[in-house]
């Protein structure tokens, strides 16, 4: 797992048993994490990145990771900043202090979503049962992060390894998303 992006940040929830665990694909609930929505104009990005610890990528759909930090491009003026739960206050206050009156918006969205880790050689196949994106490595390389739609639920998909994806959904959608992923994977167990 060490070749995965942000493996010190995105970890399976120790208290939970896997939602699905079979040879070709597994679905694990990810442990809680601090998530911050950061909105600003270009002039503020450098400062924000330096105090956060990971640069804020300006390439669409890209991410930047550092030790226990990840900055995900969500839109041209929108980033999701990830850090361990216990660092929430420090990160929040650090950025606020550094940017001061410079126009920006920082909002705690840690509790808004939950994540599952979908991995295995059939991970791409499984995601494609509900997501209309070409996940071939050429079209969607490791590190790519995007919001999209899984069947009828908005989700965020972040490729952290060639066979590993973080799938995030707003909490009230997660039963639907994880439930359908598990159901769709059933046929892989067929004889």
């Amino acid at each position: 797992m060490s070749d995965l992006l942000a493996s010190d940040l995105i970890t399976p929830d120790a208290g939970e048993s896997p939602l699905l665990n079979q040879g070709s694909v597994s679905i694990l609930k990810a442990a809680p994490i601090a998530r911050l929505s950061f909105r600003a104009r270009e002039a503020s990005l450098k400062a924000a990145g330096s105090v956060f610890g990971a640069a804020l990528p300006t390439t669409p759909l890209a991410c930047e990771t550092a030790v226990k930090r990840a900055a995900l491009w969500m839109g041209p003026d929108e980033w999701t900043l990830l850090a361990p739960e216990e660092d929430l206050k420090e990160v929040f206050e650090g950025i606020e202090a550094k940017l001061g009156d410079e126009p920006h918006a920082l909002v705690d969205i840690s509790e808004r979503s939950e994540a599952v880790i979908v991995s295995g050689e059939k991970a791409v196949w499984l995601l494609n049962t509900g997501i209309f994106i070409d996940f071939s490595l050429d079209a969607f390389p490791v590190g790519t992060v995007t919001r999209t739609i899984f069947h009828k639920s908005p989700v965020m998909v972040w490729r952290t390894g060639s066979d590993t994806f973080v799938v995030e959904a707003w909490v009230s959608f997660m039963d639907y998303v994880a439930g359908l992923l598990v159901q769709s994977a059933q046929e892989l167990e067929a004889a």
Partner: protein
Amino acid sequence: MLLIYCPYCQVERAETEFHCGGEAHIARPADPSKASDEDWVEFLYMRTNTKGIAAERWRHNNGCGRFFNAVRDTVSDKFLKFYKAGEPMPDLEAIAKEAGK
């Protein structure tokens, strides 16, 4: 299901990620109090409903969330141009000519 290019994400995605917002380049009058009743009705309700090459608004609502504009042939559904919000309306006639319309 249409295939739509988001000029912010710089990728093509399925239509299910987007929402169409109707005719593009209808600016809200800067000072509405100066607009006549007729102007305001025009702004609120009147649309050209083009059969052919038209500029329309789209939002990548299940993606980056940005509004952008696209030139589409409403007969064939072919997209001829995508551009960011705030950029001027392209020359539709030139685009039509180039597309052999």
